[in-house]
């Protein structure tokens, strides 16, 4: 019962904050709504008993990515005339609504194989063995490290003053 209440609160906050990101005119307030949305998604992860992912969500999204986005909002202040919409508003709304309908129809009509076991409750140790073991995901982890290094170097080169 408590799980259901938590889920509904977090789901309503997530969707409301996402609508705020899209429809609030002030770009800085939209960025704040995005942070609220990230925190609510971390709550959703906790209801799914993914405790490590919830902590990573808070650290990476709320801590780092939102700071980057707010930095970009501050650096581009002079051009901010709100966030106007382009001419594609009605076609985009139709596309999004049709996609939402298709997704909900597919999800509700698929017979999922729900497992009987309860999910693992502290996930940090199993995740680490999964990520770093020989038979696990060690190669993607290394590639991810190289990708992050390339992204850092690329960001520095692109923004560097001539």
């Amino acid at each position, binding site marked *: 019962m408590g*799980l*259901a209440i938590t*889920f509904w609160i977090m*789901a309503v906050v997530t*969707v409301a904050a*996402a*609508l705020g*990101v*899209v429809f609030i005119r002030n*770009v800085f307030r939209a960025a704040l709504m*995005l942070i609220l949305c*990230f925190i609510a*998604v971390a709550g*959703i*992860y906790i209801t*799914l008993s*993914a405790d490590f*992912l919830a902590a*990573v*969500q808070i650290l990476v*999204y709320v801590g*780092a*990515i939102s700071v*980057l*986005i707010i930095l*970009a909002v501050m650096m*581009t202040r*002079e*051009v901010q005339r709100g*966030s*106007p*919409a*382009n001419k*594609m508003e009605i076609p*985009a709304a139709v*596309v999004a609504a049709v*996609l*939402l309908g298709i*997704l*909900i129809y597919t*999800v*509700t009509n698929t017979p*999922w194989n729900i*497992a009987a*076991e*309860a*999910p*693992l409750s502290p996930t940090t140790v*199993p*995740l680490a063995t*999964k*990520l770093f073991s020989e038979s696990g995901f060690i190669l993607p982890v290394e590639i*991810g490290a190289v*990708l*992050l290094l*390339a*992204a850092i170097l690329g960001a*520095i080169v*692109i*923004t560097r003053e001539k």
Partner: protein
Amino acid sequence: MTIGLNHYLILSAVLFCIGLYGALTRRNAVIILMCIELMLNAVNISLVAFSSYIVPLLLTGQVFAIFVMVVAAAEVAVGLAIILAIYRGLADIDTNNINLMKW
């Protein structure tokens, strides 16, 4: 009413479609990047939901969600760098006015 897999998947679909609508309609490049982050978060919710309802002992979905976060961090760093470079050159981040590569 118990919460099942469908609730999480429908929440994820709603969040994804809101992000898609925003990414297609907004003209401020920073807002477009924020909407892409929303869509990535929606995908992460569905991955974690699949992981804890279908294969609760394997955690594969959570590993995938971690990799999505890594790629999202790289994407937002490079994307904001590109936006700042465009802003330095054109003094504008309105996507209707950034048409140097249009033919």
